[in-house]
């Protein structure tokens, strides 16, 4: 498989704008911040959920509860892949009962990660609703799951790789396809 040249599809400014738009969409859909909470999926979903929380606070002056979730133990391919994923720990410092939860991840692909994350969340209680925000929807879903908030729809081939780089980890904000 010949590697295509890397192409930047979102730069720092575009990511910032996309997150600002998602912030407004979340507020609009939920009519404010009542019962709202964010849960980021390890690793970059956690970074993105913190950015969204900061923007929501800027906008509404309210601190939104933030949690993080590691889906390793809920994967449907445990023992099937060559590498055994590292378990990174789940931390949800609020009751999920009756909460409107916005799950946050960087890339939406097959939907299997989100399925696992929903299973994990429901083990913590009964949320009023679960919504999904992603920075990039690259298509190829394999389960009947669709994001509520999308930073950018990015049609891809399965052979392509989508890399999300965030300043919290990589020192720069960009989404690259190769």
């Amino acid at each position, binding site marked *: 498989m010949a590697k295509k040249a890397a192409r930047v599809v979102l730069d720092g400014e575009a990511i910032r704008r996309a997150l600002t738009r998602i912030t407004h969409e979340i507020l609009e859909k939920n009519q404010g911040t009542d019962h709202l909470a964010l849960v980021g999926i390890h690793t970059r979903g956690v970074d993105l959920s913190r950015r969204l929380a900061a923007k929501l606070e800027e906008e509404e002056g309210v601190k939104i509860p933030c949690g993080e979730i590691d889906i390793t133990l*809920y994967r449907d391919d*445990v023992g099937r*892949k*060559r590498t*055994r994923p590292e378990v990174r*720990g*789940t931390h949800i410092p609020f009751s999920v009962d009756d909460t409107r939860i916005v799950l946050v991840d960087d890339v939406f692909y097959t939907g299997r990660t989100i399925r696992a994350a929903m299973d*994990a969340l429901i*083990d*913590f209680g009964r949320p009023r609703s679960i919504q999904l925000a992603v920075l990039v929807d690259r298509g190829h879903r394999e389960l009947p799951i669709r994001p509520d908030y999308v930073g950018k729809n990015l049609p891809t081939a399965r052979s392509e790789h989508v890399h999300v780089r965030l300043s919290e980890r990589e020192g720069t904000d960009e989404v690259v396809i190769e």
Partner: protein
Amino acid sequence: MFTQRHFLGIAGLTQEELLFLLDTAESFREISEREVKKVPTLRGKTIINLFYESSTRTRTSFEIAAKRLSADAINITASASSVTKGETLLDTARNLVAMRPAAIVIRHPSSGAPHFLARLVDCPVINAGDGTHEHPTQALLDLLTIRERKGSIAGLTVAIVGDVLHSRVARSNMLALTTLGAQVRLIGPRTLLPAEFRSWGVELHTDLRQGLAGADVVMALRLQRERQARNFFPSTEEYSRRFGISLAALAEAKPDVLIMHPGPMNRGVEIDSTVADGPYSVILDQVTNGVAVRMAILYLLTTQTQEVVEVEPTVRDEAAA
């Protein structure tokens, strides 16, 4: 990373591997604090607990760990099995393997029994205590408890007090603690303090107060009467007077000393109730952490893929026959 097929002992583990195991165990601790204390990871897998020695904590802990990972846990105790009819460990193991478990957890009075088993079966074997040799999951849960309270292991002074000679807990802990950079002191009567341990880089003390001076952590060991073939000290009373952990003796240790005991405790013999139930005791934290450690070990060993695993084909054919 941790790529071993079996978990037989602390011996041979690197600092990096030990820290990885502790980090993994730490992420499992949260599951036991949830309302639903269960994750689906090992659904459809069977864990066999094969116990040739009595145990409350370790067996229950492994069973709970397996169940919280959604595995099916089967307990076999030697006293209620075909072992009493004369079946050998090898035959028992082959029959169990033929039932396709994902892992076998074994406790055995003979040192090396898990290692013997590991050579003969084609599933991961976990040592839950073998004779006077090792009890590696106990050492991990002790390290996790210390790290939780003290932040790190390196640089701490840890006093292990009592029947060192017969203690697999002491051996595993000594190895783990020194690998992670702690200073270990062994304290006990000369008859229960093998001089060769000096070569492991630990201090030996026959005076309790001297040994406890400035200690960050004190681990009391159970007096293992069932393994003492002869008399190692004149009387239990004298032993208790000289080596029992009392509040008075603890005055020598650091003011924020941690008190640990692997259980079961002989109250009034190796540890006073005032100490065991006192503010510095983390004995019940050890038990809680035990579940997290065993979940981590079960997870790491049973989710290895077939590509990683090497199986001796002849043994597998035999076991399946």
